[in-house]
Protein backbone atom coordinates (compact mmCIF):
# COMPACT_ATOMS: atom_id res chain seq x y z
CA UNK A 1 0.00 0.00 0.00
CA UNK A 2 2.76 2.35 1.06
CA UNK A 3 4.74 1.30 -2.08
CA UNK A 4 1.81 2.11 -4.15
CA UNK A 5 1.43 5.44 -2.46
CA UNK A 6 5.11 6.08 -3.03
CA UNK A 7 4.78 5.10 -6.68
CA UNK A 8 1.80 7.30 -7.14
CA UNK A 9 3.45 10.20 -5.38
CA UNK A 10 6.54 9.69 -7.60
CA UNK A 11 4.43 9.78 -10.77
CA UNK A 12 2.08 12.59 -9.77
CA UNK A 13 4.35 15.56 -10.72
CA UNK A 14 4.73 14.16 -14.27
CA UNK A 15 1.00 13.53 -14.53
CA UNK A 16 0.22 17.03 -13.29
CA UNK A 17 2.65 18.46 -15.79
CA UNK A 18 1.03 16.43 -18.59
CA UNK A 19 -2.40 17.56 -17.49
CA UNK A 20 -1.32 21.21 -17.36
CA UNK A 21 0.38 20.93 -20.74
CA UNK A 22 -2.74 19.29 -22.18
CA UNK A 23 -4.97 21.98 -20.70
CA UNK A 24 -2.81 24.81 -21.99
CA UNK A 25 -2.61 23.13 -25.42
CA UNK A 26 -6.38 22.66 -25.38
CA UNK A 27 -6.87 26.29 -24.42
CA UNK A 28 -4.53 27.49 -27.14
CA UNK A 29 -6.34 25.39 -29.73
CA UNK A 30 -9.69 26.75 -28.51
CA UNK A 31 -8.41 30.31 -28.79
CA UNK A 32 -7.12 29.55 -32.28
CA UNK A 33 -10.46 28.04 -33.29
CA UNK A 34 -12.44 30.99 -31.86
CA UNK A 35 -10.08 33.41 -33.58
CA UNK A 36 -10.54 31.62 -36.91
CA UNK A 37 -14.30 31.63 -36.50
CA UNK A 38 -14.34 35.34 -35.63
CA UNK A 39 -12.14 36.08 -38.64
CA UNK A 40 -14.51 34.08 -40.83
CA UNK A 41 -17.45 35.98 -39.40
CA UNK A 42 -15.70 39.30 -40.02
CA UNK A 43 -15.13 38.31 -43.64
CA UNK A 44 -18.59 36.82 -44.22
CA UNK A 45 -20.72 39.55 -42.65
CA UNK A 46 -19.54 42.50 -44.82
CA UNK A 47 -19.67 40.21 -47.86
CA UNK A 48 -23.25 39.22 -47.06
CA UNK A 49 -24.27 42.84 -46.41
CA UNK A 50 -22.63 44.05 -49.64
CA UNK A 51 -24.11 41.25 -51.74
CA UNK A 52 -27.52 41.70 -50.10
CA UNK A 53 -27.42 45.40 -50.91
CA UNK A 54 -26.56 44.65 -54.55
CA UNK A 55 -29.48 42.19 -54.76
CA UNK A 56 -31.79 44.85 -53.28
CA UNK A 57 -30.54 47.44 -55.80
CA UNK A 58 -31.04 44.99 -58.67
CA UNK A 59 -34.61 44.28 -57.50
CA UNK A 60 -35.29 48.01 -57.10
CA UNK A 61 -34.88 48.51 -60.83
CA UNK A 62 -37.07 45.59 -61.88
CA UNK A 63 -40.63 46.92 -62.12
CA UNK A 64 -42.34 43.54 -62.51
CA UNK A 65 -40.52 42.11 -59.48
CA UNK A 66 -41.50 44.93 -57.18
CA UNK A 67 -45.09 43.89 -56.59
CA UNK A 68 -45.19 40.10 -56.58
CA UNK A 69 -45.41 37.11 -58.85
CA UNK A 70 -48.74 36.40 -57.13
CA UNK A 71 -50.24 39.15 -59.32
CA UNK A 72 -49.91 37.13 -62.50
CA UNK A 73 -51.32 33.87 -61.13
CA UNK A 74 -55.00 32.93 -61.67
CA UNK A 75 -57.24 34.37 -58.93
CA UNK A 76 -58.78 31.02 -57.95
CA UNK A 77 -55.41 29.37 -57.57
CA UNK A 78 -54.03 32.18 -55.38
CA UNK A 79 -57.09 32.07 -53.13
CA UNK A 80 -56.81 28.29 -52.81
CA UNK A 81 -53.04 28.33 -52.25
CA UNK A 82 -53.13 30.89 -49.45
CA UNK A 83 -55.64 28.71 -47.49
CA UNK A 84 -56.48 30.22 -44.08
CA UNK A 85 -53.84 32.91 -44.61
CA UNK A 86 -55.59 34.78 -47.45
CA UNK A 87 -56.11 37.82 -45.16
CA UNK A 88 -52.41 38.33 -44.35
CA UNK A 89 -51.54 37.52 -47.99
CA UNK A 90 -53.83 40.32 -49.17
CA UNK A 91 -52.20 42.70 -46.65
CA UNK A 92 -48.67 41.91 -47.85
CA UNK A 93 -49.65 42.23 -51.51
CA UNK A 94 -51.35 45.56 -50.80
CA UNK A 95 -48.25 46.72 -48.94
CA UNK A 96 -46.16 45.86 -51.99
CA UNK A 97 -48.48 47.86 -54.28
CA UNK A 98 -48.28 50.85 -51.93
CA UNK A 99 -44.48 50.67 -51.75
CA UNK A 100 -44.32 50.33 -55.53
CA UNK A 101 -46.53 53.35 -56.23
CA UNK A 102 -45.15 55.26 -53.22
CA UNK A 103 -41.59 54.95 -54.50
CA UNK A 104 -42.62 56.23 -57.91
CA UNK A 105 -44.41 59.21 -56.38
CA UNK A 106 -41.50 59.86 -54.00
CA UNK A 107 -39.10 59.94 -56.94
CA UNK A 108 -41.64 62.25 -58.65
CA UNK A 109 -41.97 59.81 -61.56
CA UNK A 110 -45.28 59.12 -63.20
CA UNK A 111 -45.56 55.34 -63.76
CA UNK A 112 -45.78 54.16 -67.39
CA UNK A 113 -49.17 52.82 -68.64
CA UNK A 114 -48.01 49.20 -68.30
CA UNK A 115 -46.89 49.91 -64.72
CA UNK A 116 -50.35 51.30 -63.92
CA UNK A 117 -51.81 48.18 -65.50
CA UNK A 118 -49.64 46.04 -63.21
CA UNK A 119 -50.80 48.05 -60.19
CA UNK A 120 -54.42 47.51 -61.26
CA UNK A 121 -53.83 43.79 -61.68
CA UNK A 122 -52.28 43.67 -58.20
CA UNK A 123 -55.24 45.52 -56.67
CA UNK A 124 -57.60 43.03 -58.35
CA UNK A 125 -55.61 40.20 -56.76
CA UNK A 126 -55.71 41.90 -53.33
CA UNK A 127 -59.49 42.28 -53.56
CA UNK A 128 -59.76 38.67 -54.71
CA UNK A 129 -57.98 37.55 -51.54
CA UNK A 130 -60.09 39.79 -49.31
CA UNK A 131 -62.96 41.45 -51.14
CA UNK A 132 -63.98 43.56 -48.11
CA UNK A 133 -60.51 45.13 -47.74
CA UNK A 134 -61.22 48.85 -48.27
CA UNK A 135 -57.66 50.21 -48.76
CA UNK A 136 -57.17 48.79 -52.29
CA UNK A 137 -60.44 50.35 -53.49
CA UNK A 138 -59.45 53.64 -51.87
CA UNK A 139 -56.02 53.57 -53.49
CA UNK A 140 -57.56 52.78 -56.88
CA UNK A 141 -60.08 55.61 -56.52
CA UNK A 142 -57.48 58.19 -55.51
CA UNK A 143 -54.85 57.34 -58.10
CA UNK A 144 -56.22 55.64 -61.25
CA UNK A 145 -58.78 58.20 -62.47
CA UNK A 146 -56.42 61.11 -61.77
CA UNK A 147 -53.07 59.72 -62.94
CA UNK A 148 -54.09 56.91 -65.30
CA UNK A 149 -57.40 57.91 -66.97
CA UNK A 150 -57.15 54.85 -69.25
CA UNK A 151 -58.04 52.79 -66.15
CA UNK A 152 -61.31 54.66 -65.52
CA UNK A 153 -63.59 51.76 -66.63
CA UNK A 154 -61.55 49.33 -64.51
CA UNK A 155 -61.91 51.67 -61.51
CA UNK A 156 -65.69 51.66 -61.99
CA UNK A 157 -65.55 47.82 -62.07
CA UNK A 158 -63.50 47.70 -58.86
CA UNK A 159 -65.94 50.00 -57.04
CA UNK A 160 -68.91 47.96 -58.21
CA UNK A 161 -67.15 44.93 -56.71
CA UNK A 162 -66.68 46.93 -53.48
CA UNK A 163 -70.38 47.83 -53.43
CA UNK A 164 -71.28 44.12 -53.59
CA UNK A 165 -68.69 43.05 -51.00
CA UNK A 166 -69.56 45.84 -48.56
CA UNK A 167 -73.37 45.96 -48.73
CA UNK A 168 -73.70 48.07 -45.56
CA UNK A 169 -71.21 50.72 -46.70
CA UNK A 170 -72.33 53.90 -48.50
CA UNK A 171 -68.83 54.86 -49.66
CA UNK A 172 -68.49 52.60 -52.76
CA UNK A 173 -71.67 54.13 -54.26
CA UNK A 174 -70.53 57.62 -53.23
CA UNK A 175 -67.23 57.03 -55.08
CA UNK A 176 -69.13 55.69 -58.09
CA UNK A 177 -71.26 58.85 -58.03
CA UNK A 178 -68.11 61.00 -58.02
CA UNK A 179 -66.52 59.03 -60.87
CA UNK A 180 -69.63 59.44 -63.03
CA UNK A 181 -70.24 63.07 -62.11
CA UNK A 182 -66.68 64.40 -62.18
CA UNK A 183 -64.78 62.25 -64.68
CA UNK A 184 -67.38 60.62 -66.92
CA UNK A 185 -69.84 63.55 -67.03
CA UNK A 186 -72.75 61.09 -66.80
CA UNK A 187 -75.27 62.87 -64.56
CA UNK A 188 -77.94 60.14 -64.98
CA UNK A 189 -75.75 57.29 -63.72
CA UNK A 190 -74.25 59.54 -61.06
CA UNK A 191 -77.72 60.37 -59.69
CA UNK A 192 -78.57 56.63 -59.58
CA UNK A 193 -75.44 55.83 -57.59
CA UNK A 194 -75.89 58.66 -55.08
CA UNK A 195 -79.49 57.54 -54.50
CA UNK A 196 -78.18 54.02 -53.75
CA UNK A 197 -75.55 55.51 -51.41
CA UNK A 198 -78.22 57.58 -49.61
CA UNK A 199 -80.21 54.40 -48.84
CA UNK A 200 -77.33 52.90 -46.86
CA UNK A 201 -77.27 53.18 -43.05
CA UNK A 202 -75.11 56.02 -41.76
CA UNK A 203 -75.06 57.85 -45.10
CA UNK A 204 -74.65 61.66 -44.70
CA UNK A 205 -77.87 63.65 -45.01
CA UNK A 206 -76.61 65.74 -47.96
CA UNK A 207 -76.36 62.76 -50.36
CA UNK A 208 -79.90 63.17 -51.83
CA UNK A 209 -79.11 66.80 -52.72
CA UNK A 210 -76.03 65.69 -54.68
CA UNK A 211 -78.26 63.73 -57.08
CA UNK A 212 -79.75 66.95 -58.46
CA UNK A 213 -76.38 68.71 -58.64
CA UNK A 214 -74.38 65.92 -60.33
CA UNK A 215 -74.13 67.83 -63.63
CA UNK A 216 -72.38 70.73 -61.89
CA UNK A 217 -69.53 68.50 -60.78
CA UNK A 218 -68.22 67.54 -64.24
CA UNK A 219 -64.57 68.56 -64.27
CA UNK A 220 -65.20 71.15 -61.50
CA UNK A 221 -61.79 71.57 -59.83
CA UNK A 222 -63.21 72.79 -56.52
CA UNK A 223 -65.47 69.72 -56.35
CA UNK A 224 -62.40 67.53 -56.95
CA UNK A 225 -60.45 69.37 -54.24
CA UNK A 226 -63.27 68.99 -51.71
CA UNK A 227 -63.66 65.29 -52.50
CA UNK A 228 -59.94 64.66 -51.96
CA UNK A 229 -59.94 66.78 -48.79
CA UNK A 230 -62.64 64.50 -47.38
CA UNK A 231 -60.53 61.41 -48.13
CA UNK A 232 -57.31 62.93 -46.84
CA UNK A 233 -58.88 63.53 -43.43
CA UNK A 234 -59.57 59.81 -43.09
CA UNK A 235 -56.17 58.55 -44.22
CA UNK A 236 -53.47 57.35 -41.85
CA UNK A 237 -50.58 57.11 -44.31
CA UNK A 238 -48.57 60.42 -44.25
CA UNK A 239 -47.13 59.90 -47.76
CA UNK A 240 -50.60 59.56 -49.24
CA UNK A 241 -51.80 62.61 -47.31
CA UNK A 242 -48.91 64.53 -48.90
CA UNK A 243 -49.90 63.19 -52.30
CA UNK A 244 -53.50 64.32 -51.77
CA UNK A 245 -52.37 67.73 -50.42
CA UNK A 246 -50.43 68.46 -53.61
CA UNK A 247 -53.39 67.59 -55.82
CA UNK A 248 -55.79 69.58 -53.64
CA UNK A 249 -53.44 72.59 -53.83
CA UNK A 250 -53.28 72.36 -57.65
CA UNK A 251 -57.06 71.95 -57.98
CA UNK A 252 -57.73 74.88 -55.67
CA UNK A 253 -55.36 77.06 -57.69
CA UNK A 254 -57.15 76.07 -60.90
CA UNK A 255 -60.51 76.82 -59.23
CA UNK A 256 -59.20 80.22 -58.08
CA UNK A 257 -57.93 81.15 -61.56
CA UNK A 258 -61.18 79.92 -63.14
CA UNK A 259 -63.13 82.20 -60.84
CA UNK A 260 -60.99 85.14 -61.94
CA UNK A 261 -61.36 84.22 -65.62
CA UNK A 262 -65.16 84.14 -65.19
CA UNK A 263 -65.04 87.55 -63.44
CA UNK A 264 -62.92 88.93 -66.31
CA UNK A 265 -65.39 87.56 -68.87
CA UNK A 266 -68.39 89.05 -67.12
CA UNK A 267 -66.71 92.47 -66.84
CA UNK A 268 -65.32 92.75 -70.39
CA UNK A 269 -67.79 90.58 -72.29
CA UNK A 270 -65.03 88.35 -73.69
CA UNK A 271 -62.75 85.72 -72.14
CA UNK A 272 -59.02 86.35 -71.67
CA UNK A 273 -56.70 84.29 -73.85
CA UNK A 274 -53.67 84.53 -71.53
CA UNK A 275 -53.49 84.37 -67.74
CA UNK A 276 -51.20 87.43 -67.73
CA UNK A 277 -54.25 89.48 -68.75
CA UNK A 278 -55.72 88.77 -65.29
CA UNK A 279 -52.64 90.32 -63.68
CA UNK A 280 -52.56 93.25 -66.09
CA UNK A 281 -56.22 94.06 -65.32
CA UNK A 282 -55.68 93.70 -61.54
CA UNK A 283 -57.74 90.54 -61.01
CA UNK A 284 -54.75 88.83 -59.40
CA UNK A 285 -51.59 90.31 -57.93
CA UNK A 286 -49.44 87.31 -58.95
CA UNK A 287 -50.06 84.11 -60.87
CA UNK A 288 -49.88 80.95 -58.74
CA UNK A 289 -47.38 78.21 -59.53
CA UNK A 290 -48.42 74.68 -60.45
CA UNK A 291 -47.13 72.36 -57.68
CA UNK A 292 -46.62 69.65 -60.34
CA UNK A 293 -44.13 71.88 -62.19
CA UNK A 294 -46.36 72.68 -65.19
CA UNK A 295 -47.83 76.05 -66.29
CA UNK A 296 -51.45 77.13 -65.97
CA UNK A 297 -53.12 78.22 -69.21
CA UNK A 298 -56.55 79.11 -70.63
CA UNK A 299 -57.89 76.74 -73.31
CA UNK A 300 -60.18 77.58 -76.25
CA UNK A 301 -63.33 77.07 -74.10
CA UNK A 302 -61.99 79.59 -71.53
CA UNK A 303 -61.26 76.79 -69.03
CA UNK A 304 -58.14 76.98 -66.90
CA UNK A 305 -55.88 73.94 -66.92
CA UNK A 306 -52.20 73.12 -66.60
CA UNK A 307 -49.53 71.78 -68.94
CA UNK A 308 -48.60 69.20 -66.27
CA UNK A 309 -52.13 67.67 -66.49
CA UNK A 310 -51.78 67.24 -62.69
CA UNK A 311 -49.07 64.68 -63.27
CA UNK A 312 -45.56 65.07 -61.94
CA UNK A 313 -43.38 66.78 -64.59
CA UNK A 314 -39.79 65.65 -65.08
CA UNK A 315 -37.24 67.63 -63.05
CA UNK A 316 -35.60 69.31 -66.11
CA UNK A 317 -38.97 70.34 -67.48
CA UNK A 318 -39.89 71.73 -64.07
CA UNK A 319 -36.74 73.86 -63.95
CA UNK A 320 -37.33 75.09 -67.50
CA UNK A 321 -40.88 76.07 -66.55
CA UNK A 322 -39.61 77.88 -63.48
CA UNK A 323 -37.16 79.85 -65.57
CA UNK A 324 -39.84 80.70 -68.12
CA UNK A 325 -42.12 81.76 -65.28
Amino acid at each position, binding site marked *: MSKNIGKNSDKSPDKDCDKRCNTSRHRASRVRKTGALLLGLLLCLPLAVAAGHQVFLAHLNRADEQISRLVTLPEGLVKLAT*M*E*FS*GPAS*DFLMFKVMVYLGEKLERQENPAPQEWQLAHQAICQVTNL*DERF*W*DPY*LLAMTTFPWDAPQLLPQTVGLLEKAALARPEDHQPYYFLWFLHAYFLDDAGQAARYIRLAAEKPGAPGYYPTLAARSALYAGNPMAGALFLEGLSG*QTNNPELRQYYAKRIDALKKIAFLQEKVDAFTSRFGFAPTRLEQLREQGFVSALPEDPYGGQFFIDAQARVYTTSKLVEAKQEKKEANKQAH
Partner: protein
Amino acid sequence: MLFKLWQVALFTYRESLRQRIVYGVLICAALLILFSLMFSGWFMRDILKIILDLCLAAVSLGGLLVPFFVAINLVAGDIDQKTIFTILSRPVGRGLYIVGKFCGLALLACTIIGILTLATLAALWGAALIFDPFFLRNLSINAILVAIAMKALATLVLIAVAMLWSTVTTSTFLATLLTLCSYIIGQSVESVVRFLVLQQNQLDYSPLLRLVAEASLYVFPNLAAFNFQHQAAHGLAIAPGEVLFALVYGLSYTAGLLILAVLLFSRRDLS
Protein backbone atom coordinates in the same frame (compact mmCIF):
# COMPACT_ATOMS: atom_id res chain seq x y z
CA MET B 1 -59.52 5.94 -14.50
CA LEU B 2 -59.93 9.71 -14.71
CA PHE B 3 -56.94 10.10 -12.40
CA LYS B 4 -54.82 7.89 -14.69
CA LEU B 5 -56.01 9.88 -17.70
CA TRP B 6 -55.06 13.11 -15.95
CA GLN B 7 -51.62 11.68 -15.11
CA VAL B 8 -50.93 10.66 -18.71
CA ALA B 9 -52.15 14.08 -19.90
CA LEU B 10 -49.99 15.91 -17.38
CA PHE B 11 -46.98 13.75 -18.26
CA THR B 12 -47.50 14.51 -21.97
CA TYR B 13 -47.93 18.22 -21.24
CA ARG B 14 -44.68 18.36 -19.22
CA GLU B 15 -42.81 16.27 -21.77
CA SER B 16 -43.92 18.52 -24.63
CA LEU B 17 -42.92 21.65 -22.73
CA ARG B 18 -39.39 20.25 -22.59
CA GLN B 19 -39.14 20.64 -26.38
CA ARG B 20 -37.66 24.11 -26.64
CA ILE B 21 -39.07 24.66 -30.12
CA VAL B 22 -42.33 25.63 -28.41
CA TYR B 23 -40.71 28.57 -26.67
CA GLY B 24 -38.89 29.58 -29.86
CA VAL B 25 -42.09 29.75 -31.87
CA LEU B 26 -43.84 31.59 -29.03
CA ILE B 27 -41.14 34.27 -29.13
CA CYS B 28 -41.48 34.48 -32.94
CA ALA B 29 -45.26 34.80 -32.68
CA ALA B 30 -44.96 37.52 -30.01
CA LEU B 31 -42.52 39.39 -32.28
CA LEU B 32 -44.96 39.00 -35.16
CA ILE B 33 -47.67 40.60 -33.07
CA LEU B 34 -45.39 43.53 -32.24
CA PHE B 35 -44.51 43.76 -35.93
CA SER B 36 -48.22 43.95 -36.76
CA LEU B 37 -48.43 47.26 -34.89
CA MET B 38 -45.58 48.74 -36.91
CA PHE B 39 -46.73 47.23 -40.20
CA SER B 40 -50.34 48.44 -39.85
CA GLY B 41 -49.12 52.05 -39.61
CA TRP B 42 -48.33 51.98 -43.34
CA PHE B 43 -51.94 51.46 -44.36
CA MET B 44 -54.60 54.04 -45.10
CA ARG B 45 -57.81 52.97 -43.38
CA ASP B 46 -58.10 49.24 -42.53
CA ILE B 47 -55.52 49.34 -39.72
CA LEU B 48 -57.58 47.10 -37.42
CA LYS B 49 -57.93 44.49 -40.15
CA ILE B 50 -54.16 44.43 -40.73
CA ILE B 51 -53.40 44.00 -37.00
CA LEU B 52 -55.98 41.25 -36.59
CA ASP B 53 -54.96 39.46 -39.79
CA LEU B 54 -51.39 39.22 -38.58
CA CYS B 55 -52.22 38.41 -34.95
CA LEU B 56 -54.76 35.73 -35.85
CA ALA B 57 -52.29 34.26 -38.35
CA ALA B 58 -49.79 34.08 -35.47
CA VAL B 59 -52.44 32.29 -33.37
CA SER B 60 -53.00 29.81 -36.23
CA LEU B 61 -49.27 29.17 -36.64
CA GLY B 62 -48.82 28.74 -32.89
CA GLY B 63 -51.66 26.22 -32.89
CA LEU B 64 -50.31 24.33 -35.93
CA LEU B 65 -47.04 23.85 -34.12
CA VAL B 66 -48.66 21.32 -31.78
CA PRO B 67 -50.01 18.76 -34.29
CA PHE B 68 -47.07 19.08 -36.70
CA PHE B 69 -44.06 19.25 -34.43
CA VAL B 70 -45.09 18.05 -31.00
CA ALA B 71 -47.91 15.51 -31.42
CA ILE B 72 -46.22 13.39 -34.07
CA ASN B 73 -42.86 13.47 -32.28
CA LEU B 74 -44.48 12.36 -29.06
CA VAL B 75 -46.77 9.60 -30.30
CA ALA B 76 -45.00 8.24 -33.38
CA GLY B 77 -41.68 8.88 -31.62
CA ASP B 78 -42.81 6.76 -28.67
CA ILE B 79 -43.56 3.89 -31.02
CA ASP B 80 -40.50 4.47 -33.18
CA GLN B 81 -38.09 4.54 -30.25
CA LYS B 82 -39.97 1.82 -28.30
CA THR B 83 -40.38 4.11 -25.26
CA ILE B 84 -44.09 3.28 -25.41
CA PHE B 85 -43.38 -0.02 -23.59
CA THR B 86 -42.28 1.91 -20.49
CA ILE B 87 -45.68 3.61 -20.35
CA LEU B 88 -47.73 0.54 -21.28
CA SER B 89 -45.90 -1.62 -18.71
CA ARG B 90 -47.69 0.46 -16.06
CA PRO B 91 -51.43 -0.04 -15.47
CA VAL B 92 -52.32 2.17 -18.46
CA GLY B 93 -54.38 0.72 -21.30
CA ARG B 94 -53.73 1.57 -24.94
CA GLY B 95 -56.99 3.53 -25.18
CA LEU B 96 -56.13 5.54 -22.11
CA TYR B 97 -52.68 6.20 -23.53
CA ILE B 98 -54.13 7.68 -26.76
CA VAL B 99 -56.82 9.74 -25.01
CA GLY B 100 -54.37 10.91 -22.33
CA LYS B 101 -51.81 11.96 -24.93
CA PHE B 102 -54.55 13.85 -26.80
CA CYS B 103 -55.66 15.64 -23.60
CA GLY B 104 -52.06 16.64 -22.80
CA LEU B 105 -51.50 17.95 -26.31
CA ALA B 106 -54.85 19.77 -26.24
CA LEU B 107 -53.75 21.41 -22.99
CA LEU B 108 -50.50 22.47 -24.64
CA ALA B 109 -52.32 23.88 -27.68
CA CYS B 110 -54.70 25.80 -25.39
CA THR B 111 -51.72 27.20 -23.45
CA ILE B 112 -50.01 28.42 -26.64
CA ILE B 113 -53.23 29.85 -28.09
CA GLY B 114 -54.06 31.47 -24.72
CA ILE B 115 -50.68 33.22 -24.60
CA LEU B 116 -51.07 34.38 -28.19
CA THR B 117 -54.60 35.62 -27.45
CA LEU B 118 -53.22 37.75 -24.64
CA ALA B 119 -50.56 39.05 -27.02
CA THR B 120 -53.30 39.88 -29.58
CA LEU B 121 -55.24 41.82 -26.95
CA ALA B 122 -52.01 43.60 -25.99
CA ALA B 123 -51.46 44.52 -29.65
CA LEU B 124 -55.00 45.93 -29.82
CA TRP B 125 -54.40 47.91 -26.64
CA GLY B 126 -51.18 49.27 -28.19
CA ALA B 127 -53.10 50.17 -31.35
CA ALA B 128 -55.70 52.05 -29.28
CA LEU B 129 -52.85 54.12 -27.84
CA ILE B 130 -51.14 54.82 -31.16
CA PHE B 131 -53.93 55.26 -33.68
CA ASP B 132 -57.00 57.48 -33.91
CA PRO B 133 -60.17 55.69 -32.60
CA PHE B 134 -61.66 56.16 -36.11
CA PHE B 135 -59.36 53.41 -37.42
CA LEU B 136 -60.49 50.97 -34.70
CA ARG B 137 -64.22 51.66 -34.94
CA ASN B 138 -65.00 48.13 -36.22
CA LEU B 139 -63.37 46.39 -33.26
CA SER B 140 -65.43 43.48 -31.93
CA ILE B 141 -63.76 41.62 -29.06
CA ASN B 142 -66.53 38.99 -29.13
CA ALA B 143 -65.86 38.19 -32.78
CA ILE B 144 -62.11 37.98 -32.08
CA LEU B 145 -62.61 35.59 -29.15
CA VAL B 146 -65.01 33.42 -31.15
CA ALA B 147 -62.54 33.31 -34.06
CA ILE B 148 -59.71 32.30 -31.71
CA ALA B 149 -61.85 29.66 -29.98
CA MET B 150 -62.69 28.18 -33.39
CA LYS B 151 -59.00 28.18 -34.30
CA ALA B 152 -58.36 26.24 -31.09
CA LEU B 153 -61.04 23.75 -32.09
CA ALA B 154 -59.48 23.35 -35.54
CA THR B 155 -56.16 22.68 -33.80
CA LEU B 156 -57.79 19.95 -31.68
CA VAL B 157 -59.17 18.33 -34.83
CA LEU B 158 -55.73 18.43 -36.40
CA ILE B 159 -54.11 16.97 -33.27
CA ALA B 160 -56.60 14.09 -33.48
CA VAL B 161 -55.70 13.65 -37.17
CA ALA B 162 -51.99 13.61 -36.30
CA MET B 163 -52.62 11.02 -33.58
CA LEU B 164 -54.60 8.83 -35.95
CA TRP B 165 -51.83 8.88 -38.57
CA SER B 166 -49.23 8.26 -35.85
CA THR B 167 -51.03 5.11 -34.75
CA VAL B 168 -51.42 3.87 -38.33
CA THR B 169 -47.91 4.48 -39.67
CA THR B 170 -44.55 3.26 -38.50
CA SER B 171 -42.45 6.38 -39.00
CA THR B 172 -42.66 10.02 -37.84
CA PHE B 173 -41.89 11.27 -41.35
CA LEU B 174 -44.85 9.43 -42.88
CA ALA B 175 -47.15 10.59 -40.08
CA THR B 176 -46.05 14.23 -40.65
CA LEU B 177 -46.58 13.91 -44.39
CA LEU B 178 -50.07 12.44 -43.98
CA THR B 179 -51.06 15.09 -41.43
CA LEU B 180 -49.79 17.82 -43.78
CA CYS B 181 -51.86 16.35 -46.64
CA SER B 182 -54.94 16.21 -44.39
CA TYR B 183 -54.36 19.86 -43.40
CA ILE B 184 -54.05 21.05 -47.01
CA ILE B 185 -57.08 19.05 -48.15
CA GLY B 186 -59.05 20.20 -45.09
CA GLN B 187 -58.30 23.85 -45.80
CA SER B 188 -59.17 23.72 -49.51
CA VAL B 189 -61.79 21.01 -49.99
CA GLU B 190 -64.71 23.35 -49.21
CA SER B 191 -63.56 25.86 -51.87
CA VAL B 192 -63.16 23.07 -54.45
CA VAL B 193 -66.62 21.63 -53.79
CA ARG B 194 -68.18 25.12 -53.81
CA PHE B 195 -66.49 25.81 -57.14
CA LEU B 196 -67.78 22.53 -58.61
CA VAL B 197 -71.32 23.16 -57.36
CA LEU B 198 -71.38 26.77 -58.65
CA GLN B 199 -69.87 25.88 -62.04
CA GLN B 200 -71.87 22.69 -62.66
CA ASN B 201 -73.95 24.28 -65.43
CA GLN B 202 -71.05 26.02 -67.14
CA LEU B 203 -68.30 23.40 -66.98
CA ASP B 204 -68.42 19.90 -68.32
CA TYR B 205 -66.66 17.68 -65.82
CA SER B 206 -66.94 14.06 -64.81
CA PRO B 207 -69.64 13.22 -62.20
CA LEU B 208 -67.02 10.98 -60.59
CA LEU B 209 -64.83 14.03 -59.92
CA ARG B 210 -67.68 15.75 -58.13
CA LEU B 211 -68.43 12.59 -56.17
CA VAL B 212 -64.80 12.28 -55.06
CA ALA B 213 -64.68 15.97 -54.09
CA GLU B 214 -67.93 15.75 -52.13
CA ALA B 215 -66.80 12.55 -50.40
CA SER B 216 -63.53 14.28 -49.44
CA LEU B 217 -65.56 17.05 -47.81
CA TYR B 218 -66.97 14.51 -45.32
CA VAL B 219 -63.99 12.14 -45.05
CA PHE B 220 -61.31 14.77 -44.44
CA PRO B 221 -61.77 17.43 -41.75
CA ASN B 222 -63.29 20.56 -43.28
CA LEU B 223 -60.95 23.01 -41.54
CA ALA B 224 -62.44 26.00 -43.41
CA ALA B 225 -65.57 25.49 -41.26
CA PHE B 226 -63.62 26.84 -38.27
CA ASN B 227 -62.28 29.91 -40.06
CA PHE B 228 -63.97 33.05 -38.67
CA GLN B 229 -60.91 35.24 -39.16
CA HIS B 230 -62.54 37.31 -41.92
CA GLN B 231 -65.47 38.24 -39.68
CA ALA B 232 -63.19 39.08 -36.75
CA ALA B 233 -60.84 41.20 -38.88
CA HIS B 234 -63.72 43.21 -40.36
CA GLY B 235 -65.74 43.41 -37.13
CA LEU B 236 -68.68 41.54 -38.68
CA ALA B 237 -71.32 39.78 -36.63
CA ILE B 238 -70.91 36.00 -36.44
CA ALA B 239 -74.12 33.98 -36.67
CA PRO B 240 -74.53 31.91 -33.45
CA GLY B 241 -75.97 29.01 -35.47
CA GLU B 242 -72.85 28.85 -37.60
CA VAL B 243 -70.63 28.71 -34.48
CA LEU B 244 -72.83 26.05 -32.91
CA PHE B 245 -72.67 23.82 -36.00
CA ALA B 246 -68.89 24.27 -36.21
CA LEU B 247 -68.61 23.41 -32.51
CA VAL B 248 -70.71 20.25 -32.82
CA TYR B 249 -68.89 19.29 -36.03
CA GLY B 250 -65.45 19.84 -34.46
CA LEU B 251 -66.17 17.95 -31.25
CA SER B 252 -67.90 15.00 -32.92
CA TYR B 253 -65.23 14.73 -35.64
CA THR B 254 -62.44 14.82 -33.02
CA ALA B 255 -64.21 12.18 -30.90
CA GLY B 256 -64.69 10.01 -34.01
CA LEU B 257 -61.01 10.28 -34.93
CA LEU B 258 -59.92 9.43 -31.39
CA ILE B 259 -62.19 6.36 -31.28
CA LEU B 260 -60.75 5.25 -34.63
CA ALA B 261 -57.20 5.85 -33.34
CA VAL B 262 -57.92 3.83 -30.18
CA LEU B 263 -59.43 0.97 -32.25
CA LEU B 264 -56.46 0.84 -34.62
CA PHE B 265 -53.92 1.23 -31.84
CA SER B 266 -55.50 -1.56 -29.75
CA ARG B 267 -55.06 -4.00 -32.63
CA ARG B 268 -51.59 -2.85 -33.55
CA ASP B 269 -48.69 -5.23 -33.05
CA LEU B 270 -46.14 -3.08 -31.27
CA SER B 271 -43.47 -5.72 -31.07
